[in-house]
């Protein structure tokens, strides 16, 4: 087989040197009755060409011919060619976790740069070298806050990504931790009055997201003040960190976590991505995951090592700050390369393009009679639209035009029937936005007609506000 470097004669010779007569003897340890007596029922062997053909066939059954307005925690951005060229270097791609620092300075320095970039973006003092993704990073932040505060009650904004909340729930339910959710206001932001009453002196942490799941930017400073008052930590999750190039960094937070997928990591049906977690220097010992530190070798040259490993499970075992071991280094490296390429000005310009396109789209849709933009808070590259009639039917109509028109919010927010969450990044063209608005227009006109004519309709267009 083409991947295996032993030839038949190598094998015979090795067996001989070990003093065995047959390959079967190698498995003598395994009780006879436990051995599989038949070949595995899996397809193959495939040649390389056949593998490519197999997956090319699969890739055809995809949305690749469609324009997509989906965001909701996963963002389509243009990925410069250089990223994959560098990631494909065997020294990065096929390297082990950098325990042997002498053989991993490349990975270590790159992760150190990743950490630095994340602190610059988030306004925090230290960041770790990646977690699994945004959802688990948020959960790790919650667990960390509980360790720091030694409290067992957590308050979550309802505008935190629903799947992030689900992950937190899975982890917390076994630890007997109380969870409280705070609803949103008509602005689309967290309801500050309700938040006030939800926070108490038992609260370990408040978790908000900004821009939140509806795209609305949260008032982090005010919220931080409220949180601080009761001794809880403020955790700000940022699934779309491109926003941080234009939106004020949540530097009043205690922990900023999120998802670095936006930075050059493919959408890839939801993973692999790269979670990040940044915090204040003084909390670093409770931080989960790996941390790369700068040091100096015996000849005074700069070097990098995994630091504070005593928090980790190799040494602390059941008392570790987290069980995470293998994380998402290569995706963090992709993000590092991406951020270096874009740089200070590039990232800002890109964020401006996202903002411009998103607001162009919002205006184009808002100009259609019957369409509403329900939330009033400022937003970055995502916003919510109330559709003129059934959101499902509208999505169908858009799909016929090869447009995936966003996410139906009722899936996660039953009260938001006929509301769509739309994301407009730089890869969506004006022409496509115009085409989408045109479908809205036709659809709205058709819905109105149905009302006028009193015909059956899936979702009554008149049922507004």
């Amino acid at each position: 087989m083409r991947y295996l470097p032993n030839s038949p004669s190598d094998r015979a010779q090795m067996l001989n040197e070990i003093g065995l007569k047959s390959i079967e003897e190698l498995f003598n340890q395994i009780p006879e009755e436990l051995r599989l007596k038949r070949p595995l029922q899996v397809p193959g062997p495939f040649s390389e060409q056949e593998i490519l053909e197999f997956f090319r066939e699969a890739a055809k059954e995809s949305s690749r011919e469609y324009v997509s307005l989906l965001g909701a925690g996963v963002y389509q951005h243009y990925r410069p060619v250089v990223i994959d060229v560098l990631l494909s270097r065997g020294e990065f791609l096929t390297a082990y976790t950098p325990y042997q620092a002498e053989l991993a300075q490349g990975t270590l320095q790159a992760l150190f740069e990743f950490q630095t970039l994340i602190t610059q973006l988030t306004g925090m003092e230290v960041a770790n070298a990646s977690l699994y993704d945004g959802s688990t990073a948020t959960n790790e932040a919650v667990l960390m806050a509980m360790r720091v505060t030694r409290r067992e009650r957590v308050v979550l904004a309802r505008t935190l990504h629903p799947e992030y909340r689900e992950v937190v729930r899975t982890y917390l339910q076994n630890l007997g931790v109380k969870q409280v959710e705070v609803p949103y206001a008509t602005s689309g932001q967290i309801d500050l009055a309700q938040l006030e009453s939800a926070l108490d002196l038992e609260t370990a942490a408040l978790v908000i997201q900004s821009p939140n799941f509806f795209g609305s930017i949260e008032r982090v400073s005010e919220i931080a003040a409220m949180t601080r008052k009761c001794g809880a930590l403020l955790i700000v999750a940022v699934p779309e960190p491109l926003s941080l190039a234009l939106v004020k960094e949540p530097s009043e937070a205690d922990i900023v976590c999120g998802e670095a997928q936006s930075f050059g990591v493919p959408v890839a049906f939801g993973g692999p991505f790269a979670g990040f977690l940044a915090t204040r220097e003084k909390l670093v010992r409770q931080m989960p995951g790996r941390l790369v530190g700068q040091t100096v070798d015996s000849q005074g040259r700069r070097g990098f090592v995994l630091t504070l490993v005593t928090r980790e499970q190799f040494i602390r075992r059941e008392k570790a700050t987290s069980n995470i071991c293998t994380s998402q280094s290569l995706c963090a490296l992709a993000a590092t390369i991406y951020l270096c390429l874009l740089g200070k000005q590039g990232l800002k310009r890109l964020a401006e393009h996202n903002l411009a396109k998103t607001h162009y789209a919002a205006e184009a849709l808002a100009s259609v009679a019957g369409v509403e933009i329900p939330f009033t808070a400022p937003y970055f590259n995502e916003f919510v639209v109330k559709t003129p009639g059934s959101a499902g039917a509208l999505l169908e109509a858009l799909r016929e035009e090869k447009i995936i028109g966003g996410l139906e919010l009722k899936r996660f927010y039953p009260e938001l029937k006929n509301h769509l969450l739309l994301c407009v990044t730089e890869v969506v063209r004006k022409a496509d936005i115009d085409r989408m608005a045109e479908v809205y227009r036709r659809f709205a006109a058709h819905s109105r007609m149905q009302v006028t004519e009193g015909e059956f309709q899936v979702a009554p267009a008149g049922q507004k506000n």
Partner: protein
Amino acid sequence: MTRNEGLIFERSSPGKTGAELSALDVPPVSAKEILGEEFYRSEIQGFPEVSELEVVRHFTRLSTWNYGIDTGLYPLGSCTMKYNPRVNEAVAALEGLATDHPYTPESLAQGCLKVLAQAARCLIEITGMDSISLQPAAGAQGELTGLLMMRAYHKDRNEHRRYILVPDSAHGTNPASVTIAGYEARNLKSNDRGCVDLEELNRAMTGEVAGLMLTNPNTLGIFEDQIQEIARKVHAKGGLVYMDGANMNALVGVARPGEFGVDVMHLNLHKTFSTPHGGGGPGSGPVAVKKILEPFLPAPIIEEDAEGFCRLNYDRPKSIGRVRAFYGNFGMAVRALAYILAYGPQGLHQVTEDAVLNANYVLAKLRSAYELAYDAPAMHECVFSDRRQAQRGVRTGDIAKRLIDYGFHPYTVSFPLIVPGAMMI
């Protein structure tokens, strides 16, 4: 070649950039106006400004300081490092697979869903289990997921058990996961063969114990040949058997955990199934279970109907919930499937044979120079001790560094903890 390379920030100079945008095709806006003073950020302080050339050169130079499978042998025990086929990277990058959004309507995402379903089918066949979730992002998260399912299982039967038994040779993530799952880890001493001590197990396995967390072959590279008896004892007390499948490389095609009493286990696609380690991830840690645990799998699960149409089923009332957003590290499932397809049934068996052959060859060649921790034939790895060398003051860490001087990546140092001065190959 001598290569010094500073931090990328040190190359920064105002006005440089490594990426430029296409012309904006909508009217420009004022971010300051839209966001208002309260929210507007004018600058990311300290952010680098470098050209594309400098980025390429910086990371190329950094990479030359790394060791990888592509540059040499990785004789690591426990962490199976195998060739990462390049075609796997190519297929994972295909437009359609690399670009579908996780919220793509199911009818437009059949390609991705079928890949997941097919990968799941293969892994179930290989493990001999009944069902699987590809959601966990790595081995440790797989462990946690499995433990939470054990918990949910007991709870569903109105039992409240507090302990998980963990052999002292176990990987650190095992006890760490136990804690996060809300259990207490109880240490299980190994016997003089490096295996689970049945006496110890008898004593420890009470009605308060939710289950046993076992690695098989264990971290000494030894197959727990009394596994059936072990499972029987655990099950007799109402417990469940969790298997850490990090070492499945020694078993694929030869024996199936589903057939020796394991109730739940995880796999590491970044070990056994050749997805690249990437300098510390991404990995993937699917959890496979027997029927009794199926209701508790993380939601959603993928279902394929008779016509081959795949759906995500979220209607799972007994599910432990999600452990990660979306469907796990999809891209790793693509690669693992490509790996399985490349080999096919005979090929996978050959891999296992070669792994065990290689380990035993190493054992045979080195046993005259180094002391074996436990004198038993190896499965896919073997563990020596530095006992002899330590008498002259040379420890496992020193031997490892000397290997580096010769251009080799060392073995796994000082693990498992039960072997003094462990050298795990």
